[in-house]
């Protein structure tokens, strides 16, 4: 059953999402995301597609299945999905309740996803189920920090942002491990807050 509280939260955020997240963050993160997504190969699962801002840096000609919990977000993404020069399909789906068969994908990509998934370890375990054995998971995520005073600031900020958007204090690398993945590489892009993670 879809997590309707999370779905409603992101449906509400959809009309203004590009305005808030589009220009600044995407411009700042564009080279890092482009480098990460250039690794796409084979049957790719991408989550969460949101309004499709990341599609601009997808390498062309890929076979991508994308999911997002918010139908309103995907409505905004339609034009970007249609413009993608490759096979890109988007479905409304909760990561906790994915209907894909086991071992359906060669690779999984996430982009600022596990700051928002309500039960991150369960969500990551679901991803492990649909990823073929030996398949790669590449994540672009923001997390909490281990360093003071940033650690405290991220906790405080989470009180303000949780109701309308993401948590700022997630321990995503530890969650990836707790879900049964082997973490091969962590690349800190800004402090230990914005990072890419490669796991298998």
């Amino acid at each position, binding site marked *: 059953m879809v997590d309707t509280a999370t779905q409603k939260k992101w449906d509400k955020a959809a009309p203004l999402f590009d305005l808030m997240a589009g220009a*600044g963050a995407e411009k*700042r993160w564009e080279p890092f995301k482009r480098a990460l997504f250039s690794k796409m190969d084979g049957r790719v699962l991408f989550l969460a597609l949101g309004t499709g801002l990341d599609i601009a840096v997808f390498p062309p000609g890929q076979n991508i299945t994308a999911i997002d919990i918010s139908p309103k977000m995907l409505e905004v993404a339609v034009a970007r999905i249609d413009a993608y020069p490759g096979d890109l399909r988007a479905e409304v789906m909760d990561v906790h309740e994915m209907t894909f068969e086991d071992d359906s994908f060669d690779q999984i990509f996430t982009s600022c996803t596990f700051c928002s998934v309500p039960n991150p370890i369960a969500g990551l375990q679901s991803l492990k189920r649909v990823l073929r054995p030996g398949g790669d998971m590449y994540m672009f995520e923001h997390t*909490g920090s281990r360093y003071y005073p*940033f650690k405290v600031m991220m906790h405080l900020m989470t009180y303000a942002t949780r109701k309308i958007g993401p948590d700022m204090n997630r321990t995503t690398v*530890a969650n990836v*491990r707790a879900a049964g993945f082997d973490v091969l590489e962590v690349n800190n892009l800004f*402090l230990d807050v*914005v990072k890419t993670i490669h796991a298998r």
Partner: protein
Amino acid sequence: MDHRLYFVLGDLLANTLVGALIGALAELIVSTSWNMNVAMLVLMALGMLIAGILSLLIGALLGAMEVMVPVMLTGMVSGMVVGMWAAMAPLSGTSAALIGAVCGFVSVVGVWIVNNAVRGVTLFESPSEPHG
């Protein structure tokens, strides 16, 4: 730090302006009748709170975490320093804004220095090795 000029200048400008704003605000709120420690703590919290809200607006132009973290630090430091200073001795609005701007500059440069030490790739030979 991000080496693209747009972000370097944007980060510097955002933090010095937010620092100046919080500094001026601290001078308006705090007088010499305040206890220095109370002024420092109250303005530190208030500065961080206001800066956190401002970072959401600035973020639309300059990014998300890369804006929020230094700007909140700027708010905290600027509020703390100017709040404490204004409790000890009378301070003009211009001086308070200037001190706040310097706090903002120092904060963002501090974040750049820490960032240069923390950022980069960590490879895990043993996949269970702990990491944040």
